């Protein structure tokens, strides 16, 4: 009970900054809105014949992309705590060792949720209409958040290894761009060269985007890509959670 209170207090601490300074959230919500609008009107005609036709395809893709980008801030925040001594202050307090990490990831889930809601609202204003049900939409949100929790561990590792917060961002975004763009998030797979299609189809970002699209548009099977992305999430968590904790302890033991 006490540990849960402490985790909530640590999550509050990451969120209270957003409440005071909404631009902080803007940092990573304006960008996806820009992406959404630009993709829609610049590529929409070429990819789908018209922006209107492209919207249903690209909106789930942008939601997935944004989820990945927001996880970078988990690593960024953790690294800031490590380099600024805040993490040491927490460690000298009688709280469980995992609480600071759990608090950060929990706060991140709230930010993720806000971003998804924002994109859905903007999508609606641009003309998007849900083809499935609210239950499907909730399933989409749950799937994206589950993947986010798992993927956060990759960024925790980056946050532990990086020298300073700037390097977390540099490394995080540099790694995310190819994974995001060499996927079916923005462009149908069958328009790509065959040698690339194998990679794109196995890419968890594609699976997640396909599942999200099916859950929002009823335009294909949802279960198969959903299970595929959950399998990826499990695999990522199983590898990166222990590895991150191991590397974190190593960094702390070094002094």
């Amino acid at each position, binding site marked *: 009970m*006490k540990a849960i*209170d*402490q985790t909530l*207090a*640590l999550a*509050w*601490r990451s969120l*209270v*900054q957003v409440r*005071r*300074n909404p631009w902080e959230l803007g940092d990573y919500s304006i960008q996806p809105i820009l992406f959404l609008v630009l993709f829609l009107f610049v590529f929409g005609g070429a990819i789908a014949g018209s922006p209107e036709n492209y919207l249903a395809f690209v909106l789930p893709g942008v939601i997935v992309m944004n989820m990945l980008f927001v996880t970078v801030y988990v690593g960024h925040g953790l690294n800031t*705590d490590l380099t*600024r*001594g*805040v993490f*040491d*202050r*927490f*460690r*000298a*307090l*009688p*709280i469980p060792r995992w609480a600071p990490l759990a608090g950060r990831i929990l706060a991140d889930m709230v930010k993720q949720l806000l971003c998804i809601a924002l994109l859905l609202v903007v999508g609606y204003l641009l003309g998007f209409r849900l083809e499935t049900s609210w239950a499907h939409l909730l399933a989409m949100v749950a799937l994206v958040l589950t993947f986010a929790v798992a993927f956060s561990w990759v960024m925790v590792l980056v946050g532990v290894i990086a020298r300073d917060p700037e390097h977390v961002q540099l490394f995080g975004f540099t790694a995310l761009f190819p994974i995001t763009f060499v996927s079916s998030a923005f462009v149908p797979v069958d328009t790509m060269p065959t040698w690339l299609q194998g990679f794109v189809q196995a890419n968890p970002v594609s699976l997640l985007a396909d599942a999200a699209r099916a859950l929002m548009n009823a335009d294909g099977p949802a279960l198969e890509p959903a299970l595929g992305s959950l399998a990826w999430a499990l695999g990522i968590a199983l590898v990166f959670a222990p590895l991150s904790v191991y590397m974190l302890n190593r960094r*702390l*033991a*070094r*002094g």
Partner: protein
Amino acid sequence: MDNAIEVEGLVRDFGGTRAVDGVDLRVPAGHVLGLLGPNGAGKTTVVRTLATLLAPTAGTARVGGFDVVREAARVREIIGLTGQYASVDEKLTGRENLILIGRLLGLKRREARARADELLGDFDLREAAQRPAQTYSGGMRRRLDLSASLVGRPRILFLDEPSTGLDPRARRDLWERVRQLQAGGTTVLLTTQYLEEADALADTIVVLDHGRVIAKGTAAELKARVGGRTLFLVVARPEQAAAASDRVAGMVGTQPQVDGETISVPVSDPSLLPAVLRDLDAAGIEVAELGLRGASLDDVFLSLTGRSGASREEPGAGEDAA
């Protein structure tokens, strides 16, 4: 339990560097221990080990009767730590920083707020309470940091170079707080490079150099060890300072400290004074001023390490002089 802090044979290595090399400490409950040493002496490493942030390579340490390795969780319940570098959340306001610590220590929301406001008042931060800590000056940050370590009313408090970066007034304020805490029964271990600070606050001073304890005692005891007196002389012509220093070294047996035209050296036999004057006179060195004063802790440090008190030295510069 008599000793709030007990350290035996503490060793800590970083890769190939031995930062702490067999330190023993005993701090009775309610005492202020001053850990004095130059940059790189191992002060921070000792503090971080006692605060459960670093595991010892060898030796044992007990804080409040609890082993810092095996009973780390118990230790964390009774200590407060202000590290060498301010460790507040820059994005949070001062008040939010303190509320967070209170909540983490298990205070109810209302209690945490009340405690935060109390400390903000005590530390003269009420006006800045609602501003993000990143807008604070160095001194305000230090005060916030210190209040953060006091939220839980710790029985044992670690302060790592608490007055570094403070202006003289802020430093005196800080000293006043430490005295109040001591009066309230808190055990304090503070590290410092300022000899004056150790002298002003500490019941006992432990001098650390290259990871080893090279002296311990009260300020008075340490001064007595040096013979209690310092010979100082001012040469009339600066270019003769070096020559004068060499001649004094020959007579006293210790290399004096030279600062411009002023030469000072600890002496055990005050009757050397006339002899020094005669010798310099014979060598044609003009003396503008010559006298004896009680030894300062600076002199203690000089006589113990062969180097001057470290506060004005670059890290590593001491190695060359030694």
